């Protein structure tokens, strides 16, 4: 379609609209739903349930205006929700049902007439008109993005099928839901979490092994101080070669063939017989050898002849004097 054709169609449509507006029998009275009094408490009135399927079947249906009255926001009390901005007064006027359905086309699906402010002094009413076959109505069949409510199934099979689809699409909240949300189904863990991995043993062993020493690092060598040469007396280490180690003695022959069992007892298998035994030591020496710890030979002091070593001098013999002698001597005093 070229722009010229579009302009032509628009002009035709405008002409038709003007003709329709000029005809007296087709005046459309605005449906005004008076809002509640301003003194009433703010009420959020949900639209009445609409059986859209029934509306589709009743062709041509009577336009059912869906009016959402929005009362002026009173002064919030007790910190209630903030008042929403007051929109400009407008009204949606539906087409009268007297319009012949054949005259409708895709271009004139909806006609919105803005009511001037002086025409609506008391209330602000938003009127939304929907008509059967309207794409807006079709959009209303789809669930809104913010709602989880789905279309009611018509039959049991459809409900089961939708339930299976719901199970697959259900999302489990990552966070713990509030208790008022009711029981939650435990689903698979979210993809953000990973299962515990098996530790890499090779990597751990590599971490435990000391790193290969490549010498001091640059940071370690940064503060290197050169030491001065020693000033004290010089000491020399005797570097004379040590005596050469004695060569290892050849291992003695410790393996000796045992006498054969076929030989008579007391005979030797070696040629020449047993080695001659050394001469037996004297009896005294054998005694000395028998006792393990040898006793020292003491050197005796030469004997002395009989000599009077002590001399005892006795006291005066006073005990021999009789008592009578002593008594007579005392009596002579």
């Amino acid at each position: 379609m070229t722009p010229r054709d579009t302009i032509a169609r628009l002009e035709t449509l405008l002409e038709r609209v003007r003709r329709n507006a000029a005809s007296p029998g087709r005046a459309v009275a605005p449906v005004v739903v008076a809002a509640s009094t301003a003194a009433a408490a703010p009420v959020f009135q949900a639209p009445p349930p609409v059986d859209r399927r029934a509306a589709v079947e009743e062709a041509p249906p009577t336009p059912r205006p869906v009016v959402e009255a929005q009362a002026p926001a009173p002064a919030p009390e007790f910190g209630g929700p903030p008042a929403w901005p007051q929109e400009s007064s407008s009204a949606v006027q539906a087409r009268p049902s007297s319009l012949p359905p054949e005259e409708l086309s895709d271009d004139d699906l909806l006609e919105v007439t803005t009511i001037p402010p002086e025409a609506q002094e008391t209330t602000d009413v938003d009127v939304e008109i929907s008509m059967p076959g309207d794409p807006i109505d079709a959009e209303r069949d789809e669930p809104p993005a913010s709602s989880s409510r789905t279309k009611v199934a018509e039959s049991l099979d459809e409900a089961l099928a939708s339930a299976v689809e719901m199970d697959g699409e259900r999302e489990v909240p990552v966070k713990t839901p509030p208790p008022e949300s009711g029981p939650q189904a435990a689903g698979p863990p979210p993809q953000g979490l990973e299962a515990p991995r098996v530790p890499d043993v090779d990597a751990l062993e590599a971490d435990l092994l000391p790193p290969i020493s490549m010498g001091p690092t640059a940071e370690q060598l940064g503060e290197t101080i050169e030491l001065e040469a020693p000033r004290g007396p010089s000491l020399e280490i005797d570097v004379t070669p040590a005596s050469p180690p004695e060569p290892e003695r050849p291992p003695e022959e410790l393996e000796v063939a045992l006498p054969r069992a076929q030989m008579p007892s007391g005979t030797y298998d070696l040629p020449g017989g047993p080695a001659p035994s050394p001469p037996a030591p004297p009896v005294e020496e054998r005694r000395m050898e028998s006792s393990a710890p040898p006793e020292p030979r003491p050197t005796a002091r030469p004997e002395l002849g009989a000599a009077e070593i002590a001399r005892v001098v006795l006291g005066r013999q006073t005990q021999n004097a009789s008592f009578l002698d002593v008594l007579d001597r005392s009596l002579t005093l």
Partner: protein
Amino acid sequence: MGTPRFDPTHSLEFNLDRGTVKLSGSLERIVLPADALSALIRGADAETRRDFAHRLGTEAGRRMAERLDSGASLEAVVEHLGGEIALMGLGSLAFERWGGALVATVQASPLRAEGDELLAGVVAGALQRAFGRSAGVLVLQRDDSLVRLLIVNPTTAERVRGWLGSGVAWSDVIARLNGPGPVQS
């Protein structure tokens, strides 16, 4: 022949049936309180006290003479005479020789100082009875538990009493009797 040892076995016999006490089978004895005897001696005159003491000494000398001869040693006399005095309960006897002077000592006498004259009479009576010597025995020195009795002839004894009465010390008495000084044995 050696001097026999003093044997006090069964010397004192108490007959509880008859209520008598005998010493070595001799005459009966009386066990008296020491302070009672001391009071009695103190109340008697000097002659009575002397006779009473001589009688006790004569009895001890007699028993000693039965066991000892005239040639008995000083130690033997001390052993036997001392045994007899001990059996009478008058104390422990010993002898000292201060030069030529013979001094008998009695220790732990129950009669204390009041019985010193009695002890002197006992020793004099025993020597008279055992050895036939008349000796003058007088108190030379006295301390808390020991009394020294000088044994001399009766004449010297009277002179020594005069010295002691005049305040001459007992050591000076010994010195005067022995010249340069006493010889203690």
